[in-house]
């Protein structure tokens, strides 16, 4: 990445602020013009370095939900199928295969967001659909930390 790209990345990995025309403000911060800012963001998106440019919500404040980590014991040859089915549900926000598996067998990890009340029912439905009956619901009982990674701001790595 160029020096200017890194400067821009640093300016947009947090919050863009309260300006009505935020990209004009970013241009000032980065000592360039607005067109260059828009172009760099576009380029980083095309390259896939920026996944999304968006509002990040606090889900509890937005009235959404609790989160639960649900882990599944899936025979290796079925991981592809199970991962694909799980990913199709809106309630499943993250889904990974992990290695080593937890307790030697739980290898598919899904983060599920829905209301506490509907969670159990949802998981039972999903379990039947997957034809996987060995799973654990690891509810989140207390949040100690939740933030977006800052790759650029401490100047340590780039």
């Amino acid at each position, binding site marked *: 990445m160029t020096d200017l790209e890194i400067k821009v*990345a640093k300016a*947009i*990995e*947090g*919050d*863009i602020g*309260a300006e*009505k*025309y*935020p*990209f004009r403000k970013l241009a000032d911060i980065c000592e360039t013009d*607005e067109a260059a800012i*828009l172009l760099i963001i*576009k380029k*980083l998106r095309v390259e*896939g*370095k*920026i*996944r*999304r*440019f*968006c*509002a*990040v*919500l*606090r*889900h509890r*404040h*937005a009235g959404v939900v609790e989160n639960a*980590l649900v882990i599944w014991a899936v025979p290796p040859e079925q*991981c592809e199928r199970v*991962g*694909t089915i*799980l*990913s199709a549900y809106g309630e*499943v*926000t*993250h*889904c*990974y*295969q*992990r290695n*080593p*598996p*937890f307790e030697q067998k739980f290898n598919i*990890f899904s983060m599920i*967001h829905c209301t506490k009340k509907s969670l159990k029912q949802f998981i039972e439905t999903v379990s039947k659909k997957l034809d996987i009956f060995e799973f654990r619901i*690891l*509810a*989140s*009982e207390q*949040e*100690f*930390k*939740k*933030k*977006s*990674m*800052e790759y650029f701001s401490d100047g340590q*790595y780039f």
Partner: protein
Amino acid sequence: MDEIDRRILNIIQDDFPVEPDPYAAIGEKAGIGEDEAYRRIMRMKEEGIIRRIGAVFDREKLGYAGTLCAARVPEDRVNSFVSAVNAYPGITHNYRRNHDYNIWFTLIAPGREEIERIIAEIAAQTGISDILDMPACRTFKIKATFEL
């Protein structure tokens, strides 16, 4: 939060317009004016519904490594363990979960060696040696947005 707020959130949690007049573009999509779109979004930031507006970077594309750790921590040492863990900037999520492995956190660092170094350092510093390191070998989905 009313219907218009929800409409706005559904638009901008997917895609905040990267263009000179973003609030005008949001207003148009939500069926309101630029000023109202701007005011409502500022209000939802103040209320804490919106954590931030900006870029979400792709860890892998930036060449970083990540992992999920689970630690077994005796109850009377949870506070000090959590403080030690959270002090690292690469810790992005840390939760207590209902299991013998009671503390679950995610760690991002420039490479696998750095991840292993940090976990070893946490173990040495806290005396908690039962920390599992479970990196993803396959990513099926990352999309933390919800229809509101």
